[in-house]
């Protein structure tokens, strides 16, 4: 375990070892071994292994075997299902349609403003900008566009399967 950096004392006071392992593992950008996650979460490696296995059992994480080493990575399906659940809790079907329209409008504004059809095409435009601020603005817009496209795919999923996803709740209400 490394020396505590800024904020680590407050973090460990406010959270359990399981909380920290889950928070670190759920936000990994690439598969990592238990030793790495233990180090980042300020827990013993054996503790991390136990919590990681529990998170695998709960389908929060997936394991990947690389050359005999077990690596842990977030399960993208779990993140997607969590987001779906939040949307269904916060919005009814009409409100989901309004949200879809809002996101589509924003994307259409970018399409019209930059005369491109995708975030990758927008990034190519950044090669032809005249100023640093314009380049930064295009880069940020391309990122927001990617994020919104991902979000839109989940909103559409919620709308298309609204009856199925809410069936059990409505039947028991």
């Amino acid at each position, binding site marked *: 375990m490394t020396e505590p*950096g*800024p*904020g*680590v004392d*407050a*973090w460990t006071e*406010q*959270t359990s070892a399981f*909380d*920290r392992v889950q*928070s*670190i593992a*759920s*936000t*990994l*950008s*690439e*598969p990592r071994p238990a030793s790495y996650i233990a180090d*980042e979460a300020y827990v013993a490696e054996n503790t991390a292994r136990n919590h990681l296995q529990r998170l695998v059992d709960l389908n929060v994480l*997936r*394991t*990947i075997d690389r050359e005999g080493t077990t690596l842990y*990575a*977030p399960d*993208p399906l779990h*993140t*997607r299902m*969590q*987001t779906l659940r939040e*949307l269904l809790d*916060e*919005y009814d079907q009409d409100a989901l349609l309004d*949200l879809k329209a*809002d*996101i589509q409008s*924003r994307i259409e504004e970018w399409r019209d403003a930059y005369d491109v059809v995708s975030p990758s095409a927008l990034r190519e435009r950044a090669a032809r900008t005249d100023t*640093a601020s314009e380049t930064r603005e295009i880069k*940020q817009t391309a*990122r*927001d566009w*990617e*994020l*919104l*496209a*991902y*979000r839109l795919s989940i909103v559409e999923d919620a709308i298309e399967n609204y009856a199925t996803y809410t069936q059990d709740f409505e039947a028991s209400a």
Partner: protein
Amino acid sequence: MGGPDWTYDPAEASHRALRGIQHELGRHPIVTDVRGFPTGELTRVVAALATERWGADRDDAALTVRWFAGATADAAPEFSFHYSDEASDSGWHHEPNPHVEGWGHYQEWNATTEEYTYDSYTFGSANPTRVVWEVMSSLSAELDAD
């Protein structure tokens, strides 16, 4: 296990990071409200802060967070934690900036010169959760110093 070993989607990774940041800020004792912004879209996370709990009474104290997980899984993330209140404007950034060497820096608005000042800053971790607590600790120190 079926399906591919593991695939990387920058938008999914960024979305996941922002969700994690929102969750982590919600655990912090001076955060009174935290939400994805714009509503329903989540391209940023915005938190309202009760800085008086640190002994620094500031009106309209807020933190706005952006996070981009990188074009590839092993690429460094680009992010910013922007703090503002009725009297000040500052932030911890990890992204290219012509005023500093390297990506990590702290920038602060100088009301006298009406320009930002920039100082290099080295983050202890690139994990979104760890960065949240590090920035909150650094913010506490900055407000304490003012």
